[in-house]
């Protein structure tokens, strides 16, 4: 178990042995008035969630599962960009140890093409902007290949698998939270358009790859390029037209772009 420590926002980090989901717990705390920068960490999640209702495998004692409550003073349309801000902060905190770490739009960190961390951001809209945002992070830290379910092996990885050593969970969490607080400040000052966008595009997993983007009920084969100042994915579709995707998910489909384009 991690020992209690103060967060960079001046709040006490809430530590739990087991929760259904750190984000679900913190959502309730936020409704009850918990302050900006509240952090909840669980040793184990019984119903860890990924984006679009998917499950996040959350076994006890080996990984980090945490959520941060933010009450950003931002225009509503800028708030979703906090997912990418979190991805940039995670990259900064982990990239010294994990070479080849990449950010995959919209919300994953990959190492050697395997999923290392996932981010799930949820917002409660308010009368003027967002009332609050819960940013949930699942990071595979000390899990070994055999700790993952067979169907995930080969698609996921951990820091330990990549670096050949185990990590102190408390130290790592403190480092990540410090970076998140730092990047949050940068974002409030300059948005994505400066150093955050630059960091993401320099370490962008999808750059110049042929992908399929599932955006609502549409699937499009395209070549991904980078993200723009609003966090949208810039891509070229089969007929050469440039498009910017604001939502959806992208996956690699080797050859799909060329086949469809002919």
């Amino acid at each position, binding site marked *: 178990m991690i020992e209690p420590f103060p967060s960079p926002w001046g709040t006490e980090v809430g530590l739990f042995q087991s929760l259904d989901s750190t984000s679900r717990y913190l959502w309730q705390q936020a409704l009850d008035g918990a302050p900006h920068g509240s952090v909840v960490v669980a040793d184990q999640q019984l119903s860890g969630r990924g*984006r*679009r*209702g998917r499950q996040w495998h959350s076994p006890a004692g080996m990984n980090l599962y945490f959520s941060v409550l933010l009450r950003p003073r931002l225009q*509503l*349309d800028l*708030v*979703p*960009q*906090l*997912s*990418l801000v979190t991805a940039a902060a995670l990259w900064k905190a982990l990239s010294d140890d994990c070479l080849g770490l990449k950010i995959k*739009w*919209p*919300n994953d960190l990959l190492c050697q093409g395997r999923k290392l961390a996932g*981010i*799930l*951001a*949820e*917002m*409660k*809209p308010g009368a003027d902007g967002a009332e609050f*945002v819960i940013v949930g992070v699942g990071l595979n830290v000390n899990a070994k290949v055999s700790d993952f379910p067979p169907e995930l092996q080969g698609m996921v990885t951990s820091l330990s698998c990549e670096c050949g050593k185990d990590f102190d969970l408390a130290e790592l969490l403190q480092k990540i939270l410090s970076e998140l607080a730092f990047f949050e400040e940068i974002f409030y000052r300059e948005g994505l358009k400066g150093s955050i966008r630059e960091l993401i595009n320099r370490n962008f997993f999808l750059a110049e790859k042929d992908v399929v983007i599932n*955006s*609502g*009920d549409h699937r499009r084969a395209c070549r991904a390029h980078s993200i723009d100042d*609003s*966090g*949208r994915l810039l891509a070229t579709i089969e007929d050469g037209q440039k498009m910017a995707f*604001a*939502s*959806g998910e992208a996956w690699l489909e080797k050859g799909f772009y060329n086949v469809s384009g002919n």
Partner: protein
Amino acid sequence: MAEVTSPMVGKIFKIEVGVGDTVAEGDEVVILEAMKMEMPVVSPIDGTVKEIKVAVGDAVESDTVIAVIE
């Protein structure tokens, strides 16, 4: 009667109620995904769902009417 409207541009990824369902103020009607963030859109009043005007996967603009509650 009250309309449930989209707070911002996004896509509908989950519909939580059906026509005829009873809802309370604050109950989730749909989950909207805007860029990389999920957000519940809630009923502004107690009532019954009279109409749902969107389907899963629909793109919606800000202030698009999602459902009608009476």
